[in-house]
């Protein structure tokens, strides 16, 4: 197991995301929707960071379990926690937030879920980590950290609120 990001590296990545987003939204009105799980914690921390910088942030959470393309192959379905979007999607400029961008399938499911809530004016993507190996034509607008990984590696993200500790590790495929 290879530790690639420690607590301060993660905090730095969150900061970087906040800076990038603010640079693109000078008016300081930002709608973030974090993808469960862990994408929601990243969104929360980015939101805090943005608010410290004086931005106005609306925060929502999206549960994409019902939209996954692999449900039929699972021996039991993921625990549903539900989505919570306390503002209108219609005409909003949404920034989807997730912890790791990999094949892009999670984001595809997130589009389906999001669009069942309404019709946003635009959707951008912010990820804490981009580990490459895309299988769909999806690319992020805001990236905290880029990691070189092999296709079969496991990238394990632990975040303070969800897992009790901030650390990102890569488990090499043996």
């Amino acid at each position, binding site marked *: 197991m290879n530790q690639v990001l420690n607590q301060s590296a993660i905090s730095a990545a969150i900061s970087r995301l906040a800076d990038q987003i603010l640079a693109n939204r000078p008016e300081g009105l930002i709608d973030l929707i974090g993808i469960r799980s862990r994408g929601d914690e990243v969104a929360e921390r980015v939101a805090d960071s943005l608010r410290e910088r004086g931005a106005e942030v609306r925060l929502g959470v999206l549960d994409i379990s*019902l939209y996954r393309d692999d*449900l039929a192959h*699972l*021996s*039991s*379905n993921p*625990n549903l926690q539900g989505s919570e979007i306390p503002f209108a999607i219609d005409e909003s400029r949404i920034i989807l937030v997730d912890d790791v961008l990999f094949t892009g399938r999670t984001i595809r499911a997130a589009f389906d879920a999001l669009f069942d809530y309404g019709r946003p004016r635009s959707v951008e993507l912010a990820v804490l980590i981009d580990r490459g190996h895309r299988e769909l034509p999806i690319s992020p607008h805001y990236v905290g950290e880029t990691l070189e990984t092999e296709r079969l590696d496991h990238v394990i993200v632990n975040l303070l609120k969800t897992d009790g500790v901030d650390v990102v590790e890569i488990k090499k495929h043996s």
Partner: protein
Amino acid sequence: MARKDFLDVGSLDREEIIRLLDQAVPFKELFTRSVKKVPALKGKTVLMLFYEPSTRTLSSFEVAAKRLSADVTVFDVPHSSVTKGESVRDTIDTLQAMRADYIVVRHRLSGQPAAIARQTGASVINAGDGAHAHPTQALLDAFTLREVYPQMEGKKVLITGDILHSRVARSTSMILEKLGVEVAFCGPGSLVPQTSYRRFTNYDEAMKWGPDVLYLLRVQKERMDADFFPNDREYHNVYGVTERRLEEIKDRGIYIMHPGPINRGVELCDAVLDYDRCLISQQVENGIAARMSVLYNLKPQIS
């Protein structure tokens, strides 16, 4: 590893029940969206096998399945309660040919859904079998109760009516008990058997016990082949929620539930439906969410 079938409450433990209830909450939230569908069961076939007529339960399941984007087929079965020789084996052969992933079964004979489940890899959901079980009703009842009493432990629920013939009484009492609720039965002596629950045959005595919820059962005329009590009017006067009794219920803030369909003037008077603590319509609404939760949490074992 998800379970294949949902046949009765007895086979569920407390953790599983709470999980199913928790999972019903996000499904209920979907009702407020304009797009009420999610693709979780897209491409899957849900077969409705209702050997006993029922518009409400059937349509509740249909809506639940369709909101999960499943393909729903209602299988036309003969409704005659006299038809014997509806062998389980014959049914299974037909079902295999239809390649259903989920089969929702309602049957007049206790144990039929279990027998079907044993012989097919499809996920079988019991929508009510004889006087044995109605687990999805139990789930939506528990869900509804939890909405008014998030801490259910120690609450008292009085189930009143024809307990003897009621699968709802059996399943709902069992699920509530597993969630820490105290359950008692009340009704005519000929319709309330000896069970592990407290037994009342007198309405006033039952009210002294201090129930928080009155769960009224439909008086099952069609299931009785002999008279268990003289007539409807007597039942209403002795055990029903009359207008006078409703006043006391309102004073004490007791909630009223009923699985439907109601017999006006028998289990309850019309005024009950206007009482703000009557939870009957919430039960109906929660039925769809509860059934979606069940469908989402089962996995067929079809090779």
